[in-house]
């Protein structure tokens, strides 16, 4: 299989004064499912369209397998794009839609037929092959768009929020399908979404974007468990933050002593490489409710806080705590028992493993 490596080097794309993509570089490995994740307006679509050739970058270069493609017009880049709106040709039937790109590649006759029916099989749309697009549901149109893009066996698949117009249940189904399909075909894929759960579920690696720049690149696990800035931590799931002032950190032996929630906490020096104010971040599900007499395990830390709010969500129970440092923390109790639920105003003890503590400098990574 001829898999393609995509190298994006210092790409900048401006619209007037707005830098939609700002000096951005990424290396995407052959056969990788790579996700661009970020809030609306952060430049995901612009970057994708620049790769497809619909925008032309102000500076920087793009390489497919080491070959510069900047001079190639969009119709010669051999990318397969799935648009957010699906962009199905309304005047063609389902199979004519799928055949469109093949015909442009001068594929005719039996070969054409076979490829079309294979692609329709892959997206499980064979029985609809003679339908008109306006008789199809959103999910079906989305499958057609995918089939139309994969059938040409492009160098790279580009998907721009392909699931955002579907309902929640279908969205989960489809993203599993897309991942299976991508792994089966082995085509390098760049996937755009603003949905962090989708990104974590589907990707090999994720780039979290912030205002046209990369905030962090990593595997889903790294992005979720080891965010390198409060922006990433906040964008990926909810998180609890505490600002730690520089003057509350002091050196003691080969460790640092930090005053956290009015108690001393001793951290290994490589956990705390910064010389400035830092932010402590702990995921709500990493915090564990403990009884007062429970013995703290090795490498754990606990503190006591007042419950300021409670929310019952069926599968989980959420406390909002007023911590001793005056921060507002969320704690989730998964699969709660009746006895687990405490009332507002009560004091409870929460603890967490120091492995679940993430530390980053104020104002992001610089």
């Amino acid at each position, binding site marked *: 299989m001829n898999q393609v490596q995509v190298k994006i080097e210092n790409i900048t794309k401006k619209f007037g004064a707005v830098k939609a993509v700002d000096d951005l570089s990424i290396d995407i490995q052959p056969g990788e499912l790579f996700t661009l994740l970020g809030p609306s307006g952060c430049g995901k679509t612009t970057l994708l369209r620049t790769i497809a050739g619909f925008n032309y970058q102000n500076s920087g270069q793009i390489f497919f397998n080491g070959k510069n493609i900047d001079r190639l017009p969009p119709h010669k880049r051999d990318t*397969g*794009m799935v*648009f957010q*709106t699906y962009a199905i*040709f*309304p005047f063609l039937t389902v199979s004519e839609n799928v055949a*469109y790109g093949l015909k442009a590649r001068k594929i005719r006759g039996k070969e054409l037929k076979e490829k079309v029916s294979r692609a329709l099989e892959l997206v499980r749309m064979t029985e609809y092959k003679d339908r008109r697009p306006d008789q199809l549901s959103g999910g079906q149109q989305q499958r057609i768009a995918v089939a139309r*893009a994969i059938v040409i066996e492009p160098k790279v698949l580009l998907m721009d929020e392909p699931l955002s117009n579907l309902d929640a249940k279908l969205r989960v189904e489809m993203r599993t399908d897309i991942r299976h399909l991508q792994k089966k075909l082995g085509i390098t894929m760049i996937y755009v979404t603003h949905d962090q759960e989708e990104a974590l579920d589907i990707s090999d690696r994720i780039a979290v974007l912030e205002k046209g720049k990369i905030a962090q690149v990593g595997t889903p696990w790294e992005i979720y468990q080891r965010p390198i800035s409060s922006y990433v931590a906040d964008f990926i799931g909810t998180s609890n933050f505490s600002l730690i002032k520089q003057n509350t950190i002091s050196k003691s032996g080969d460790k640092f002593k930090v005053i956290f929630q009015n108690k001393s906490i001793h951290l290994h020096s490589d956990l705390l490489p910064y010389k400035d104010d830092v932010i402590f971040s702990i995921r709500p599900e990493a915090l564990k409710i403990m009884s007062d007499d429970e013995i703290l395990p090795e490498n754990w830390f606990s503190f006591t806080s007042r419950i300021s709010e409670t929310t019952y969500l069926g599968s989980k129970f959420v406390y909002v705590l007023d911590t001793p440092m005056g921060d507002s923390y969320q704690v989730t109790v998964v699969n709660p028992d009746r006895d687990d639920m405490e009332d507002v105003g009560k004091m409870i003890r929460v603890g967490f493993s120091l492995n679940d503590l993430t530390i980053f400098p104020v104002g992001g990574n610089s």
Partner: protein
Amino acid sequence: MISLPKKRFDIWYIPVIIVIACYGLFLLYPVYNVIKSSFFNESGSTITFNSYVKFFTVPYYYRALLNTLCLGFFGTLIILLITLPLAYFYTRTRIFGHVAIGTIIWIPYLTPAFIGAYTWLILFGKFGLVTKFLISIGFENPPTISGLGGILVIFVLSYYPFGFVLLKGAFETIDPSLEESAENLGSSPFRRFWTVTLPAATPSILNAGLMVFIIIIDAFGIPAIVGIGVPVLTTLVYGEFTSEIGGPPIMAATGSTILLSISLTILIIQRVYLKKRSYFSRGVARPKMVNPKLGKKIILTLIFLIVLILSLLPIITIIISAFTKADGPVLRYGTWTLENFEKTLYSVWVPLKTSVMLAFGSSILDLLLGGLMGYVIVRKGKLLGTFMDAFTSLPLGIPGVLLGIGLVISFSSRPILLAGTGFIIVIAYFVRRLPHPIRTVSSLLSQINPDVEEASVNLGVPPIKTFYKVTTRMVLPGIITGGLLAWTSSIADLTCTILIFSAKWKTLTIETYSQIRGDQYGAASVLGLFLMITVVTPVFILNILNDRKKRKEMVEE
């Protein structure tokens, strides 16, 4: 949408340049010549305002202006007052035969206005059927359609469908949630109309009014046929121009320049207004239709029936008259005959062929360049789009008589000697009707997501090929509708044609008009019938094709 590395010469500039060149040479240059000659003296050597002084002091001239303004104002007012309730009820209540009524009501608008005027003359004129009937039952002075009042009535009868269609569109596109929320707040239907619907529709109503006004002041056929003794600007200009052969047509130029200043003012007001339409939802949601109580439903249906009969009367009249024995302007009803056809048929074919050729040529040009311009306006960037949109709508504000005069005085001598050729007629039709396909295509295209075209490029089809494989395909209905509009209005054109035709290039409208003026009602009816058939046939063919397609799709499902 797609920008390439090094900007080469964009191929899309070619049609843009062609259109700008055509407008420059065949629209702006003639208009400039007319305006210029209105400011020069007889010998063309010094600039004067004499002609304007003369225009505003001699009653013969300024009366025409007053008549035009008066007809325009009251005609528009009456049409709005009639069509406002019609359009409102049509869009909000179910009546019997809803669809049929909506279709048939178009007929007078498809009918060339001067044919309509002619049929009303047949019915209500000095020898008119109704007039004679009224005299026979004892009326001494039955109402006739002469004078200002008469023209006003004919204008209203000829152009109310236009007002109706525009207002129908206005009421259909008001965001239904506006009305629904008013309903939720407990507003009565009557109150809701006055406090919500009407204010929301006001910009569109004003817009419709302005368009009707322009059509009325621009019309030549109706005042020329029913308005003997009531000069308006168009007939005045025509009269001055045809009698001033020899010297420069100064008064004709002056009159048409004044007409131009009125219609351009209206066009500018209209464009400013169009910008501010904000109460409208984008298409999808339609207002709720209520099913009224039977009594109310019957009354409403009857009202629409009367309107329908008025719409159909001209076509019925002209069919009957074509088969009725005629002595000059006197038609002997009840005496069925084919005599008119026998006498006239030999003189039908040549003008029919001429009309079809000229209108066909110009409509093809219109739909080709109109389609390309529609694309440029929507897809080729805001700056170029806005400019071309405004620039290409210029003909809407330029009166036909003025363009006719301008073309004649601009191209009667070398180096470009075009006067008297068929080419100049094609050009005039082409330039005048180009805004139609541009409008229909651009409004359709602006609702189509550019993603679809980009998807085609992404799949490996180059932009130009994508344009004709995908874009053209998707805007085809707009191209056809726009081309058809260009066709019907070119075939039916009298206002401009009458100034630029020559003996070799006599159109059906010219032939019909001269038979009417020559009091040959038998021949006029036959010619008029053929004229209507040529106008309406493509519309019907299209409807039939559409129906077939719909039925075929239903079978497929």
